[in-house]
């Protein structure tokens, strides 16, 4: 188990290097000379050169890259030209918001999507199956922003049950925090639930045909044991993979949903940064997002090992 995970970890190193080169290149593609921008009105060649020395801009490009990697490894991702704040600090302040939203959305997605997928596979061809599929298809087709606006209109404006927007940190007022996040995470979660449901269904249909499911029935086991313990357990691998990837996407930020509910998360920060040409921030977010994806892939890999005993040997 451990050697497998270490191997996976080693495999992710080249990916990480590629990502860092890409992110660094992003910075270099920045139009204009950053030194000119920094120097402002003062175009004194002496000053410009001093600034170039200061920021190592006269060094060869690979040197600059290594310096940047060194900084990134130490948690220094540069400064936002807009706010002047360190990018690391900005990301650190948004990350809890995004993670809370992602986790709550994922809870909605799995709690709705997986049981619906199991049910429609077990009841294949019946009314239950058709209803589940139609609902899932609607979930995939309805745009998030529309569902979000409708929910605000209904739940916040008409019934006045939940706050329409805003964000309260979890540490400040847990209950209020969860309440404000409830609608946005529902909007995000239902869309993901639909694809989770489709994947769970097809995985379950494949597994339910297996000989060992018939064996489980031959033992006289109760139907729910057959379905959950014998079939679902073996159908989990593709479902876990998808869930991990979806979670990675959630970390990248749900731009539209955060905009609608005015949640100060990653998505909103990226949109603002792009509009303001705040490249250091975009860069930092891309790096963190890529790391998040890789982390989720590792989690999925670890889950495979737990789910599939055949991977545990060797």
């Amino acid at each position, binding site marked *: 188990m451990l050697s497998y995970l270490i191997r996976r970890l080693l495999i992710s190193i080249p990916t990480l290097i590629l990502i860092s080169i890409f992110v660094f290149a992003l910075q270099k593609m920045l139009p204009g000379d950053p030194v000119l921008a920094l120097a402002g009105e003062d175009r004194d060649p002496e000053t410009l050169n001093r600034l170039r020395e200061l920021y190592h801009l006269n060094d060869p490009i690979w040197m600059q890259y290594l310096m940047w990697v060194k900084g990134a490894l130490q948690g220094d991702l540069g400064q936002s030209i807009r706010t002047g704040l360190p990018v690391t600090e900005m990301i650190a302040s948004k990350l809890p918001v995004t993670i809370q939203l992602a986790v709550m959305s994922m809870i909605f997605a799995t709690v709705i999507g997986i049981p619906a997928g199991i049910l429609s596979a077990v009841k294949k061809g019946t009314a239950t199956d058709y209803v589940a599929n139609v609902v899932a298809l609607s979930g995939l087709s309805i745009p998030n922003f529309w569902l979000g606006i409708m929910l605000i209109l209904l739940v916040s404006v008409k019934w006045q049950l939940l706050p329409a927007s805003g964000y309260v940190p979890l540490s400040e007022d847990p209950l209020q925090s969860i309440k404000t996040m409830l609608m946005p995470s529902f909007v995000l979660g239902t869309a993901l639930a639909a694809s989770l449901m489709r994947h769970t269904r097809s995985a379950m249909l494949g597994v339910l045909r297996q000989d060992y499911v018939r064996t489980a029935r031959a*033992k006289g086991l109760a139907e729910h044991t057959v379905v959950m313990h014998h079939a679902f357990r073996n159908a989990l691998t593709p479902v876990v993979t998808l869930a991990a990837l979806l979670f990675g996407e959630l970390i990248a930020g749900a731009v539209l949903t955060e905009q609608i509910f005015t949640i100060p998360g990653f998505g909103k920060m990226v949109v603002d940064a792009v509009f303001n040409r705040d490249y250091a921030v975009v860069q930092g977010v891309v790096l963190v997002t890529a790391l998040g994806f890789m982390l989720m892939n590792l989690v999925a890999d670890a889950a495979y090992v737990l789910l599939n005993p055949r991977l545990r040997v060797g």
Partner: protein
Amino acid sequence: MVMTPNSPAPLMDLQDLSLTIAPHPTPLLDGVSLHVNRGETLCIVGESGCGKSLTSLAVMGLLAPKLQTGIAGRMRFDGQDVALSDQEALARLRGTRIGMIFQEPMSSLNPAHRIGDQIAEGWRRHNKGDGREQALAMLRRVGIPAPERRMRDYPHQMSGGMRQRVMIAMALVNNPDLLIADEPTTALDVTIQAQILDLIGQLQSEGRMATILITHDLGVVAEIATSVAVMYAGRVVEQGPVEAIFQDPQHPYTIGLMSSVPPLRGARTRLSTVPGIVPSIETMPQGCRFATRCPFAQPVCGTTPPLAPVGPGHHAACHFAPLNITQQGAA
């Protein structure tokens, strides 16, 4: 009922099992009647697709849901009447009174669970306790070396023969009255086949368990069967004691099957085969289903022959059955 007057009541007596799938009026299984006594081994033989496996799955209540609706017939199991369409009643017998092992030991065990747990859960379902002790005892009984260690193994860590032993342990953990083995050795090496059959025979002799063995290996049948049922195209065409079936086959199909076995001694002659192929469900003839391939077919074969007694405990479904024996004897 297929039974001689002075024999004890059979453990399982399957009566008139038929299976029809909606668009086809011709039943896949047509009036299948079988019986097996305690302590005895009934072998069901016949070509692929003759309904051997369907029959056993119907008895277990394990047919695919869309087939379940087409079942008719009853079975008398240990004095208790069960309709074969009553899925709940069949489910109550499954795993406790009737155990089953399958053809494919490689795919019949769940790859995600330890074999000890897979055996124990069958016990847990029908008894109190965690079943670990029983699972261990079963592994020992089926001859798995170092059973304590093997309990924690996953199926992929075992060979095919070992897995089939585990399947047997699983099927027998609740000490069932009847074991149904659906071609349990087809997927195994020849030497392992003999071991598995010996094991089944040995386990059977330890108690009063009855066994239904589905096979197309007549050598195996001669070795371990007490009685034999020959199936053809969804019907039982002959059932009787093993000696009678081998030495005095009455149905032309059985006669054809018997002469397709290579003799161990004597002159090597060209093996005879049963000419023709099994008719499909669309082209199934009216009356005797074997008529299209039968060398003795007459106009009367357009009506279905009943499974009629032709000797002690011996029945055949042929209009000419016991008649053709005298003809043969005269020839």
